């Protein structure tokens, strides 16, 4: 008997392990159609999220990620309507039958732009807002506010007004407000889309800390680099269907090709592995981190030079700025002694932390503001003598939110307006130029649609089209070209921008996307606290860790991989700025 008992116990243990705990979230045969839309946003979705797990939700633009998130707190279907079939349960609650306010005890959600989530004026009041709604005891709420402030590191700003916070602090406050609700599930929908690279990293660290605290986290993001090895689960969505669910490694290994085809952003080492595999040049496991890639490519050999070197423009100076300053009416000095030149045919990026003066600089360049000190010459004439509308013929600015610049009821009228504004009113010429531009930017099928009804990518292309159709613009300024766009849409936009550059148009981008800077830019102007702290090639910029840190930037994973390989005495040529460059140089 004595020897028998442990044997029985041993037999029972595996069966205990096989009992799967009830998942925190369960989708069963879920199909959802938005009100008034013919096609479903989600189709036959089956998935589960376990308590305490960390799940990444990935997919191309328009794949249904935000819709899926909004099902988790009942906003869909209870507030936004539409038709839902199948069942979604969160923490045992059926989301169709449990009021949204009741579901707030189970699901905390951080939106992309938390400024609109804020309901009060001060930091600590904002964190208390949710628990107050749930009638929690004020003493308990104050403790919770304290803990949440500590968690995100905003104790010193507790009395601050919410609109006085920087982008990163705003996002951290949003996170603190969600944490204070003490929900078992936290949903984060692109929480770092608007942040500079260093702040993005600090928010990522907080997300991992949340996971360590035992919260179930569902994260929608295109910045997967720091999460691939950390997440328990990855869900791949495309056209409203779950293509795969499993560990990030399994999903990437089994569906990586599909992910590339769909335009999902993947870490560069993973992309390299997948593309080499697809080309039959690679039979090792696909790396999901830089460290894994360093091991995988430990015996790699590279050709001596990089065939894809960038063009270096040496031509006419379009804009010359000498010690310019700009001070807002509230005495905030946004620019301090900034000097630079912009030459014809260059692609230049302005990068730096949130609030570094990048947007102010772009306003000066289009004439919306004039320097309060210093001298700026644009196309041979002092900036002070240019009127905004005259300058609009020379400089085209595509806003981060292109909707702001639309003036008409159809895409076609929008383009016609731009021509009329430049005095081109011959109806035959107008029609032919509009048709040509529609075809060139691949928006012909939307010619009669309302500009506001276009997809994010098409809106961005229309924004470019309205500014360039006049044909006289010499400089195109694009504010955050990759914002809200998947890899495929970004590549398309960059292809367009590169074509424009070949036609002699200078392009200036304001961006936080270091992959973009590395891949496409000739020169980066780095701003920090209103000052220009660097002006040179991305290679020189990223070789200076101090500068990168000071400007709140981060090097790309590809650069970290290249540096890691060099540290292992592998000879890697300079100028491997893109996945294509890396694969091209690999022997």
């Amino acid at each position: 008997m004595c020897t028998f008992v442990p044997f029985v116990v041993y037999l029972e243990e595996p069966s205990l392990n096989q009992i799967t705990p009830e998942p925190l979230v369960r989708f069963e045969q879920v199909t959802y159609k938005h009100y008034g839309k013919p096609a479903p946003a989600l189709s036959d979705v089956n998935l589960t999220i376990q308590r305490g797990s960390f799940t990444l939700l990935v997919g191309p633009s328009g794949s249904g990620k935000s819709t899926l998130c909004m099902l988790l707190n009942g906003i869909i279907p209870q507030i936004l309507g539409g038709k839902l079939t199948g069942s979604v349960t969160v923490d045992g609650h059926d989301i169709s039958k449990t009021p949204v306010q009741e579901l707030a005890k189970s699901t905390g959600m951080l939106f992309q732009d938390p400024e609109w989530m804020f309901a009060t004026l001060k930091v600590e009041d904002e964190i208390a807002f949710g628990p107050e709604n749930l009638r929690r005891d004020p003493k308990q709420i104050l403790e919770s506010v304290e803990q949440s402030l500590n968690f995100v590191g905003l104790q010193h700003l507790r009395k601050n007004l919410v609109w006085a916070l920087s982008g990163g602090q705003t996002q951290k406050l949003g996170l603190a407000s969600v944490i204070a609700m003490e929900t078992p599930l936290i949903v984060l929908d692109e929480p770092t889309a608007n942040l500079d690279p260093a702040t993005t990293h600090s928010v990522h660290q907080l997300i991992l800390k949340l996971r360590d605290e035992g919260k179930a986290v569902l994260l929608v993001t295109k910045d997967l680099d720091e999460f691939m090895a950390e997440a328990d689960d990855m869900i791949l969505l495309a056209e409203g269907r779950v293509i795969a669910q499993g560990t990030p490694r399994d999903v990437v290994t089994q569906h990586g090709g599909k992910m590339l085809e769909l335009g999902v952003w993947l870490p560069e080492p993973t992309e390299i592995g997948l593309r080499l595999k697809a080309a039959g040049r690679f039979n090792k496991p696909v790396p999901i981190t830089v460290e894994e890639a360093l091991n995988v490519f430990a015996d790699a050999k590279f050709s001596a030079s990089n065939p894809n070197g960038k063009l270096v423009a040496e031509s006419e100076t379009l804009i010359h700025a000498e010690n310019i300053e700009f001070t807002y009416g509230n005495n905030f000095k946004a620019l301090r002694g900034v000097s630079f030149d912009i030459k014809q045919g260059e692609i230049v990026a302005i990068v730096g932390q949130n609030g570094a003066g990048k947007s102010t600089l772009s306003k000066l360049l289009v004439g919306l503001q004039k320097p309060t000190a210093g001298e700026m010459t644009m196309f041979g004439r002092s900036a002070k003598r240019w009127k905004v509308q005259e300058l609009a013929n020379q400089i085209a600015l595509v806003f981060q939110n292109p909707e702001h610049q639309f003036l008409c009821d159809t895409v076609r009228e929008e383009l016609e307006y731009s021509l009329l504004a430049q005095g081109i009113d011959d109806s035959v010429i107008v029609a032919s130029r509009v048709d040509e531009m529609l075809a060139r930017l691949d928006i012909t099928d939307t010619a009669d649609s309302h500009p506001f009804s276009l997809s994010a990518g098409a809106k961005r292309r229309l924004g470019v089209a309205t500014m360039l159709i006049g044909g006289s613009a010499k400089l195109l300024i694009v504010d955050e070209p990759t914002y809200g766009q998947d890899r495929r849409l970004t590549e398309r936009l960059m292809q367009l921008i590169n074509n424009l550059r070949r036609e002699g148009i200078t392009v200036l981008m304001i961006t936080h996307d270091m992959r973009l800077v590395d891949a496409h830019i000739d020169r980066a102007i780095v701003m920090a606290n209103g000052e220009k702290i660097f002006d040179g090639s991305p290679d020189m910029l990223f070789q200076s860790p101090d500068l990168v840190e000071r400007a709140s930037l981060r090097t790309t994973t590809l650069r970290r991989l290249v540096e890691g390989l060099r540290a292992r005495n592998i000879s890697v040529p300079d100028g491997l700025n893109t996945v294509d460059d890396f694969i091209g140089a690999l022997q």
Partner: protein
Amino acid sequence: MSEHSLRYIDNNSFFTRIDALSKLLWVLMVILTTFQLTNNISRAIMLAVLLFVMIFLARIPFKTAWQALPIILIMGSLLFFVHLFTAPSTHTITLAGFVVGKEGFDKGLQYFFRITIMVLASFILIWTTDIRDLMVGLVSIGMPYRYAFTIFMALRFLPVVQQEVDAVKAAHAIRGRATRSPIRHRIRLWQRYMFTVIVNGLRKAENTALAIESRGFGAYPDRTYTKAFYWTKTGILLLILFLAFAIWLIFWGKTLPTS
């Protein structure tokens, strides 16, 4: 980092430290008193008192006041001119070389003062009050919190709407003008401001509504508060002093000719 004129200024001034309900009652008293005043000299005194409050008690920065000036003056000025030119007059006066009706001028000034005083008093309330305190105060005197919160949200988002208008104006400015008629162009731009601001405003208002509902707003008929409302002594003092001043002004004004 640009500046906006319609938001709370946390400057710890005398007026900022007064409780929100006292300030709200003060605004109501200002408005009621103004409608009791029977001549423009009394109304001018009331306006001067408000300017005194704005500059010395609320310590509103000159630049903020300057930026808000067009909004403060626009309605009053419009009504001034409407009455100046339309009110029937039996006497005339010469004003900067122009002959205008005296009654029309007086009537115009009357409306100018009334509207300007109302708008300025409301602005002082917005500049000096954390509207959350106002909401808590209104709830403490029995207003259902959903209604109190509606007022709160409207005030909370005024600066954000202003920011949106600025962004749209800037974007439109660089699109140029598609017609030779500046007036037609101006009308078109205004239509678009309205359209874009309303569409984006509604979209953002929807996002806000979704966000606050998903944070439990409205889950119960009542809610708890981490900061309780309390009447301040300075607030009570302000109301008593202002009441005395208002009574004096009304009766003193009656001794002057009506205008």
